[in-house]
């Protein structure tokens, strides 16, 4: 009896498991799914979990990766509003947001969806770029740089296309991956850059020389100014000395004759200072002593 009960329990468990496998399916965190009844999409599943369905062949489940997928278009030449050729690649992140819509449109094929996406991207890209000048793409003035705005316009265009067609795809982000120039244009740009560089070299040279000269002459001017000031100061200082001396002068006024005499004495000392030759006769003091020698006066 006991053994029979165990057998029944085990049998029931196995049947339940088998039934669950037939009637239940799981959708993982990163997935979306669609349930079809005889091939017709009837139920959309966007949240992860376990769900019931009728077993095959009545109902089928198709699961898709709902994570954000990266996709970029092939680079293509595009003309800007001011007739510049640009080679532009854009990248996107997209996801399958509605499996019920997505499945019948592309039969669940991601590459097919990407092909559709690529053509939408290319159309949007060409249309938007054609309405902008090159200066909207590259500009040192942040106010005039419309890079973000252009990306936004392309994204909006693709998004509206996606929702009109109801592809079950949503676009998470879109941006430029490359903005380049046609190969032949690069040579022209190189020429222009070379010319610019040469200009910079020349102006550096001249500016450097001019500035150096300016610095040097300013230094000279400053130096001579300093020296002239010093000379002026020196004159003033000497003047002060003379002014101070002038206060002493009244002393000499007491006897101008003596003052005069002393000055002449001083001049004599100065003039016969060194390396001088003196020719004198007996009238020159102190040699006037010779005059009075009796032997020395043969004339008398």
């Amino acid at each position, binding site marked *: 009896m006991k053994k029979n009960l165990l057998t029944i329990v085990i049998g029931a468990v196995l049947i339940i498991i088998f039934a669950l496998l037939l009637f239940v399916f799981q959708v993982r965190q990163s997935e979306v799914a669609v349930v079809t009844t005889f091939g017709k999409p009837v139920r959309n599943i966007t949240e992860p979990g376990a769900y019931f369905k009728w077993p095959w062949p009545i109902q089928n489940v198709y699961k898709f990766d709902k994570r954000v997928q990266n996709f970029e278009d092939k680079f293509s030449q595009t003309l800007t509003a001011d007739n510049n050729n640009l080679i532009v690649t854009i990248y996107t992140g997209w996801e399958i947001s509605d499996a019920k819509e997505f499945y019948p449109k592309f039969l669940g094929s991601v590459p097919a969806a990407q092909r559709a996406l690529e053509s939408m991207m290319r159309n949007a890209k060409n249309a938007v770029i054609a309405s902008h000048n090159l200066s909207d793409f590259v500009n040192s003035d942040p106010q005039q740089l419309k890079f973000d705005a252009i990306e936004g316009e392309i994204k909006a265009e693709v998004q509206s296309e996606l929702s009109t067609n109801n592809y079950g795809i949503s676009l998470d982000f879109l941006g430029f991956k490359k903005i380049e120039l046609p190969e032949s244009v690069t040579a022209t740009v190189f020429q222009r850059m070379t010319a610019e560089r040469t200009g910079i070299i020349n102006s550096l040279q001249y*500016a450097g020389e001019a500035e150096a000269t300016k610095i040097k002459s300013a230094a000279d001017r400053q130096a001579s100014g300093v020296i002239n000031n010093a000379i002026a100061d020196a004159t003033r200082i000497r003047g002060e000395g003379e002014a101070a001396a002038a206060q002493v002068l009244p002393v000499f006024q007491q006897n101008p004759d003596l003052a005069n005499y002393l000055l002449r004495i001083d001049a004599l000392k100065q003039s016969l200072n060194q390396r001088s030759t003196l020719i004198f006769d007996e009238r020159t003091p102190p040699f006037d002593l010779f005059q009075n020698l009796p032997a020395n006066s043969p004339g008398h």
Partner: protein
Amino acid sequence: MSDEHEHHDHAHDAPETQDAGSQALAEALHSSFAIVKIVMALMVLAFFSSGFFTVGPQEKAVILRFGKPVGEGQQVLLNAGLHWSLPYPIDEVVKIPITEQQIVSSTVGWYFTTPEQELSGEEIPAGATLNPAIDGYVLTADRNILHTRATLRYHIDDPISYVFNFAAASNTVQNALNNALVFTAAGFNVDDILLNKQNEFREAVQQRVTDLVEQEQLGIVIEQCDVESRPPRQLQNVFSQVTDARENRNKALIDAHSYENQVTNNAGAQAVSIIDVAEADRTNYVASITAEASAFTNLLAKYESNPNLFAQQMLVQTMGQVLTNVQDKIYLPQRADGKPRELRLMLNREPPEPKPAATP
């Protein structure tokens, strides 16, 4: 399977005493059932113990129960250690590698080169043009062509988002980095990127990547962004000439400044000495006048008592001093007839300086 075997067991139990042959068969069956039971018990055990798993130090794990993460918020993430989950298909364990740091490099902006060339530092000569299919570059704000590339280091902050919301999250990061380079270069002039604002450029690239990954909710944190830029190889020469010219200019300016220093310092020193001399002159002049004045006052009394005698004495005294200094003294007495003598002098151009007199 198992209930079928139990049946056989019962069937052979009843005719136990039939013969030795069937008894041997029964025993053999019995023992093989025992083995089957043990195997089954082991299998059940294995089934439940298969729920054990370990999480390594460089990873985290998430249990999906019927496809849905178990737990709330950060508790969803299981740290390193031993864990248990219900067996498949109820639970599914997803392991997420979390290395300390993830690195991605940009794929646009740089000319075609192979890792080998990169390592050896060898450079293949560049053609006259850049082929958009293989050579990358960016356009700067002043419409120059420039090569630039970046390496981004980040760590995963929100593994759930990083793994479950993105099919290839690192590629998404890479695209954000590429876009950041193209975008940032479009707003900078070539000289700023290469020279004047290298750091601002790098920071702007990093800022753009940070903004993008935040918008995209990638669940990562940017740690570091290194940017390398260089002029096109085709213009290497002319760019290095600019560098030379800039260095020459700087050198000329440095020279000019050192000349400036020298000249002004000299002038300053000269000015100080001019003023010093003037100061000394003033002091000396005043001192000597004062000295003279006091000498004058002293002499005045003597002079006034007998002006003639004083003058005579003074003159003689002075002459005595003067004559010791005079080198050649020629005495020329008056002619007897009182007529003046004729005197002829032969002057040396430069009278030889007497040795003793040179060092007084």
